[in-house]
């Protein structure tokens, strides 16, 4: 009786997920093998120099984003968690308000910061007589991904820092440990699960992000951009499908590994 009731409650969501997630994802598999390259399209991401280079630069940008974001968030979260001072709430609000910005808007923020008419260009012209512009390159993309990731990761790390037992840090200090040793031996091990979970999510998001690169456009070769151009401009559905599957596997794997490492469900951002 209750079994049937549970089944009925689950049925609408189940039908939706089957029709619009499982069937379409399964349909992607044969499509990827239907192109000029046949089934070796799946290996194209490794064998074709162009796609391989794209995969590598996407991985590098995502890894750099993750490392920098985690470092910044760890420092800022500890600074904010351990003390109360006037303006602290404002500072937290400033650090988290871009949470809901989509990638396109983040791209526009990067253009305002480091584009042709951007703040950096104006400042550098006033100071050195030369306009510094880096918005439309991999560097600009990295800046955009930092803008996107910092608010999300800071929230997770702050929550973890607040659960940290201050007595542990105090004990280490009274035993004569310096700030560096306290970080290495006490704080970072305690924060590790949160850092791994937030880092994996940050990495997966940076791998698959499309809006920021799309706004900055002009010759940024990251995997989502290549999938998009192969599909819409090149009409190469097979390669687009194969690259999508490769990209999906990488992001899924990153999240799965992190979850196994921490044993906790990664908080979705």
């Amino acid at each position, binding site marked *: 009786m209750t079994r049937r009731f549970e089944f009925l409650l689950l049925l609408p*969501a189940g039908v939706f*997920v089957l029709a*619009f997630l499982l069937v379409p994802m399964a*349909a992607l598999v044969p499509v990827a093998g239907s192109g000029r390259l046949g089934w070796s399209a799946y290996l194209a991401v490794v064998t074709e120099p162009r796609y391989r280079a794209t995969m590598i630069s996407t991985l590098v940008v995502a890894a750099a984003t993750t490392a920098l974001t985690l470092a910044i968030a760890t420092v800022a979260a500890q*600074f904010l968690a351990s003390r109360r001072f006037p303006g602290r709430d404002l*500072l937290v609000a*400033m650090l988290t308000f871009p949470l809901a*910005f*989509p990638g396109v808007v983040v791209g526009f923020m990067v253009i305002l910061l480091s584009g042709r008419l951007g703040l950096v260009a104006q400042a550098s012209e006033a100071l050195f007589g030369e306009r510094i512009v880096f918005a439309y390159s991999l560097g600009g993309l990295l800046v955009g991904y930092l803008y996107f990731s910092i608010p999300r990761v800071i929230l997770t790390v702050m929550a973890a820092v607040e659960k940290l037992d201050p007595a542990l840090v105090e004990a280490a200090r009274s035993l004569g440990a310096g700030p560096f040793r306290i970080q290495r031996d006490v704080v970072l091990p305690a924060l590790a699960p949160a850092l791994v979970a937030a880092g994996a999510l940050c990495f997966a998001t940076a791998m698959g992000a499309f809006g920021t690169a799309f706004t900055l456009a002009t010759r940024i070769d990251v995997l*989502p951009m290549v999938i998009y151009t192969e599909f819409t401009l090149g009409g190469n559905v097979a390669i687009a499908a194969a690259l999508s599957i490769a990209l999906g596997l990488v992001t899924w794997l990153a999240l799965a590994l992190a979850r196994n490492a921490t044993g906790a469900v990664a908080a979705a951002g």
Partner: protein
Amino acid sequence: MRLSTLAAGLLTVLVAAFLVVPALVSIVAGVSVSYSRGLSEGLTLDWIFEVWRLYADTILRSIMIALATLVVTLLIGVPAAYALVRRGGRLARIAEEIVTLPLAIPGLALALALIITYGGVRELRVSSAFIVIGHVLYTLPFMIRSVMAVLQSFDWRLLDDGAASLGASPWRRFVDIMLPNARPGILAGALTVVTLSIGEFNLTWMLHTPLTKTLPVGLADSYASMRLEIASAYTLVFFVMIVPLLVAMQAVARIGEPRRTA
């Protein structure tokens, strides 16, 4: 003050500035007569009106799509969350894993899969419903997890058994006992769904047609082809829509968690 503390504080302030300054520039540019000539030229709302003239349809469509997405996620997500919590065990975990897959798979890949499978159905392909399907796929996990988290935070079995012993049918127990108790989770989930739907771009860019442009699609269009003031004014409209949702979301989250004495 220690040197290391000072450095940490400085870094924190710099990062906050990095996040806030471009947004402020965008807000100012959206109401300035001329961005390149600076504020001395004065302020104006002309660009906002221009945005409304050019893009009102995208703004309204985004609101409609967000509401439709919300209705669907409520109707299919809330019962599913209850069933998963009741059922528990390995099967429920696998089901939850499958439902949350769209968080692990890039939106571009999901959209490609949807187009390959259903792109041939013309009526669907050219309608906003196609975008709603994508948004439900992407936001459903947030609704389900949010409701599940609340249901797991109290002893639902005790209430359920109590009501059952008084003769309430499973359906009545769901409507009269579970729904009221799950309200904070439903509210938090609803705010998340609407916020994410209004800002969604990765899926929507692939799924949209020239007649079904949403706000973020219009933003991308204005960034590529409009003068900076119009792009900024459009972004300002987006901020005005999204920031209250975000504030409400964080307020609900604060009510939901046990109070801490700070």
